[in-house]
């Protein structure tokens, strides 16, 4: 009886040790979790081998609709820094994860919570009252801002500053990497501008309002959307109106995110003699896009081919 009692006590003590022992010695690198892969890529550019960074959502996934899976909690609970897109893009899934993580570092307003939108130029900020009748409008502005290299540069700078605050001993390393990133981005931008120059002012249609920053940067004119209102699936009447407008305006390019159904865009393309371009809105959308530079290389490559094919 005594032996069994001692055994129970020993097992209880063991259970307590397992339950309450903190993870083994903190790793040297800063642990960074980002909501999207684009922020992962920018963080990797700046943080190099001084950070361990991973994303929650996949590059081919609709960032508005991500399941807040418990496996994400495993990533978040030991994160030093959480970087998010903000502007309510992740409002449908990130808040319960942050709360459930039990990680004080990454709670809103804590030092390890970084909303990248504060560094970016934000477009389509609604004026006046915002109503749900207008669809999934983001009251703080369009959150797809990373598709502008200028914003990529600003975000990288903001991340470098944050990493430097959190790890002052590596400040020079982060700043040097950020400057190097800026240099390489400037070089790449020259190339992208040359590629896109012949198509400045061209009119296009997109499925969702994911494209304003890209369009502004490269001088494209988005004249319509497959969605009648943001987040609302296409309706027959809107599709009919859009098709007529595209014919009238001689618009031949329809940009579609990889997570939307192609049925309506393909049908409009058949009617108008246009082409559907399934572009990638994020790093990792396809295997060959492994960083921020390749994201623009890929999308600009697709777009220029499509413009050439429809000239």
């Amino acid at each position: 009886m005594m032996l069994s009692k001692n055994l129970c006590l020993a097992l209880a003590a063991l259970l307590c040790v397992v339950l309450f022992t903190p993870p083994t010695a903190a790793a040297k690198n800063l642990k960074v979790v980002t909501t999207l892969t684009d922020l992962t890529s920018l963080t990797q550019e700046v943080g190099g081998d001084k950070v361990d960074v991973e994303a929650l959502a996949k590059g081919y996934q609709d960032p508005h609709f991500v399941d807040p899976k418990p496996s994400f909690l495993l990533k978040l609970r030991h994160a030093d820094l959480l970087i998010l897109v903000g502007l309510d893009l992740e409002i449908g899934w990130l808040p319960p994860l942050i709360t459930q993580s039990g990680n004080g570092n990454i709670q809103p307003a804590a030092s390890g919570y970084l909303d990248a939108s504060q560094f970016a130029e934000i477009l389509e900020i609604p004026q006046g009252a915002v109503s749900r009748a207008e669809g999934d409008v983001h009251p703080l502005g369009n959150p797809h801002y990373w598709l502008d290299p200028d914003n990529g540069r600003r975000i990288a700078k903001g991340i470098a500053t944050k990493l430097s605050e959190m790890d002052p001993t590596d400040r020079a390393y982060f700043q040097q990497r950020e400057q190097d990133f800026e240099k390489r981005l400037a070089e790449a931008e020259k190339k992208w501008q040359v590629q896109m120059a012949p198509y400045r002012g061209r009119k296009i249609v997109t499925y969702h309002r994911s494209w304003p920053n890209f369009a502004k940067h490269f001088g494209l004119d988005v004249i319509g959307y497959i969605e009648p209102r943001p987040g609302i699936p296409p309706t027959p009447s809107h599709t009919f109106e859009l098709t007529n407008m595209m014919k009238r305006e001689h618009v031949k390019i329809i940009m579609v995110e990889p997570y939307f159904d192609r049925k309506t865009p393909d049908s409009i393309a058949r009617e108008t003699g246009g082409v559907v371009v399934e572009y990638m809105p994020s790093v990792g959308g396809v295997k060959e896009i492994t960083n921020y530079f390749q994201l623009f290389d890929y999308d600009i490559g697709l777009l220029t081919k499509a413009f050439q094919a429809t000239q």
Partner: protein
Amino acid sequence: MNTLHNHVLLWLDRPLVTQNLVGGEDGIDDAGASFEHIIPAPRNWFLDFTGQAFRGDSADVYTSSNKNDLSVVGHVRAYRDLTDNSNLDLGVSYSRGHNLFGTDFITNLYGIDATYHWKPLQRSIYKSFIARSEIIWRQQNQPSLAACQTIACPVDTAAGFQRAFGFYASGDYQFARRWIAGARVDRSDRAFNAHLNDQGGSFILTYWPSEFAQIRGQYRFTRYADKFDANEAFIQLQFALGAHGAHPF
């Protein structure tokens, strides 16, 4: 440990086993304290323990006849991503409290649950599948039927120790952006007389005209232990007004 509001459940009703053995919609709804801890686990398993202690008075399940009649609930959840598109969620639960017959009469609840989710990430707004099952045992001491002359016993109460068992299994398939169809089988003994057994099945079809509205139709067949059958049809229309925070997974 139910963290979901009724409006996001996949069904209009609760399964028979929930109605018969764990207090239906209200369940163990009581004042108390809760403790939750994520347990480090290997191989990317998410392991979570929740322990709760209550005042012991959740009308449908436990009754506190004096201030020491507390009830407790323990739950261990094990979750793992099988692939990027699928995951498995397993749970084991235990609960103990005093039943309506008084301080000397204990009810024990044991439960196992399993949920399989499939959702292709690139088409997550169009397709998904959820298979779910819960198995529950309820064991309780009950006095002789003579006690029912002084206590308001439920209908069909039997004397002595009762071992009731029940389960449900359901599958729900989202086949288009706005449509989801599901089927469920139900079976459950009665808590106060485990020899009585109810069983049935349901079909459901849900349509979302928009993010703010939901129309559901459910057909339910139930063969009650009292030897009568029920064929029921339900239609539900839901409107959402105003903002609502995100639900946990």
